């Protein structure tokens, strides 16, 4: 049974390993073991009372990494796992008989979770039933939407930047474009050249962006994993995300090149040559 032992930590006392009777074993989370200077084999005292009343001895049988939880990654995971009878005994008078706070159920077919929860709610109205995936998905969805919205804003800003660059670039080549037009090269041909150029710039930029993100994702993850002492993965550049970035960048690059060149090419040839 997973117990949040933040309240009990004040009472976690390290004792000498020698005990008259072997104390029941517990598992201690990695963070708790490290931060409190504990070791596997140590005997500790746990109490359900903030003042330490009714403390019992337990032996640390091992350590474990709590399952990463996106909704709790900012909190320290100070946890221990006890055998259920040990926990009930520790809670003493508070527990009525062999009552438990929650029961985890593994279904033969996980796809039946919603239907099973509905049926159980109908049969036992006083029992709260929730499929285990429900809560975390909602957090993920919101964070995903938030990051998507910020991405869209940065894309708009980047597009303005790209467009400004392409306008500058087109303006720099105004006389060349004028000369080409004077030599008989059609607008379509000059425009096609600008399109290819825009495509190449956008492809190079998108490629560099994806490679940069892929190369630095390890550093970003390492920083946040260090900061929050978790094994959660914060950034992952997947092929789908890379493809999405490229698919967004290429049309924008081509469009920026097209718009910038068209503003130039629609002018009369003599104006392009500044005559």
């Amino acid at each position, binding site marked *: 049974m997973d117990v949040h032992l933040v309240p009990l930590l004040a009472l976690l006392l390290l004792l000498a390993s020698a005990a008259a009777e072997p104390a029941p074993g517990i598992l201690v989370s990695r963070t708790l073991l490290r931060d409190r200077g504990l070791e596997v084999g140590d005997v500790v005292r746990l109490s359900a009372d*903030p003042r330490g009343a009714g403390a019992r001895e337990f032996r640390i049988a091992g350590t474990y990494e709590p399952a990463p939880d996106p909704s709790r990654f900012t*909190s320290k995971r100070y946890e221990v796992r006890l055998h259920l009878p040990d926990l009930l005994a520790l809670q003493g008078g508070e527990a009525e008989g062999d009552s438990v706070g929650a029961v985890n159920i593994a279904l033969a077919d996980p796809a039946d979770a919603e239907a099973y929860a509905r049926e159980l709610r109908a049969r036992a109205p006083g029992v709260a039933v929730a499929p285990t995936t429900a809560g975390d998905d909602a957090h993920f969805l919101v964070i995903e939407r938030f990051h998507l919205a910020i991405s869209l*804003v940065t894309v708009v*800003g980047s597009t*303005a930047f790209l467009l400004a660059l392409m306008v500058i670039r087109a303006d720099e080549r105004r006389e060349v474009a004028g000369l080409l037009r004077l030599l008989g090269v059609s607008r379509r041909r000059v425009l096609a050249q600008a399109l290819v150029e825009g495509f190449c710039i956008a492809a190079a930029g998108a490629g560099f962006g994806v490679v940069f993100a892929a190369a630095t994702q390890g550093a970003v993850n390492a920083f946040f994993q260090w900061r929050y002492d978790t094994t959660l993965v914060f950034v992952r550049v997947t092929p789908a995300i890379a493809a999405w970035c490229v698919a967004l960048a290429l049309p924008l690059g081509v469009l920026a090149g097209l718009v910038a060149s068209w*503003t130039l090419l629609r002018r009369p040839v003599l104006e392009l040559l500044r005559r």
Partner: protein
Amino acid sequence: MRPLPFAWRSLSRQPARAVLGLAGITVVGALLFDMLMLSRGLLLSFREILESTGYDVRVTATDALPGLGPPIAEARAAARALGSLPEVADVVPVRFGSVSVRGADGRTASVALLGTETRRRGEWRVLRGSDLVEGTEPPSIVVNRAMAQELGAEPGAVVEVATVLPAQPFRVAGVVEFPFETAGEASATVTLDGFARAVGGVAADEADLLLVASRPGHGAEAAVAAIRAARADLHPFSTEQVLERLRQGEFSYFRQVSFVLSTITSFFAFLLVTTLLTVSVNQRLGEVAALRALGFPRRRIAADLFAESALLVGAGGALAIPLGLALARVLDAILRQMPDVPARLHFFVFEPRALALHAALLAGACLVAAAYPALLTARLPIAATLRRETLS
């Protein structure tokens, strides 16, 4: 001609370029402004909610956040002991629980239940009906709008808490708004005796939290010190201490996201203006050389460039504020869809500090962006440039 009008003429010579540059800075500036609002928004919003209750100290049994640790035993005696301190004006015990409630028409709902004493400050706001009272039979209950709507629990109706056997009836005294209620979540408050009846297996004289109001003139910190001295087994936190703890822990992710994005957007603004000015200068090298040859000092040319940068960044930064405020509403609405977020909590909160930082960061970007093109013009060989321009 002074630098600013001169810069204006330089920009208006290339309107498309200037408008695009302005658009880029406006969008980037809006994002920067939003990130600055996000960096402290949660804390400001949370402080406003905490202070609206009228209590400035929270006391728990351990250093865990309220509701996550064990309850305070003998809570009424503890409340009396703390209430007798000269630094303390008021103490209220609070219990948290979760129950299943059945309405008069048989519909049931999961309800977040609070047990406390009758209202003395801003614990909740009565919207319809009357307030919570002690000693009635059946016990009184005040419910939020979500619960009233879900179970048809209007004032005067009787609902049953079905989590215990036999089910316990409660009469709805009023519909209220709780400071920390989450959107759409059914919440209710009963008296401490009512709570013991509604939630099976809890001792009547326990509290998850003691809400303490410090006496005017003493302040929250003095009350915290007095409580620590009087009851070493309890853990008091002032509002400031609670907020600092949240800043370091639970709220730190958004602070870091805002820091990273603020840095990136400032850099982006700098890059954009640097590029525009550098290209602009490169295209006007002949003009700059001619001005220098006519006796314009380097300082004056640099001043023109800084003025051009200031015009671009200043106008973009000013336009970014209304756009940023509009964008913040959209982003805030997205984040507030997160589960268990109080309906009154906001992620993006405007404060003058954010505006000042926004201006300072953009001013920094403006100065740094103009530095490189200014250096280019300062090092420009006048004769060679003029000769090259004449030949071309």
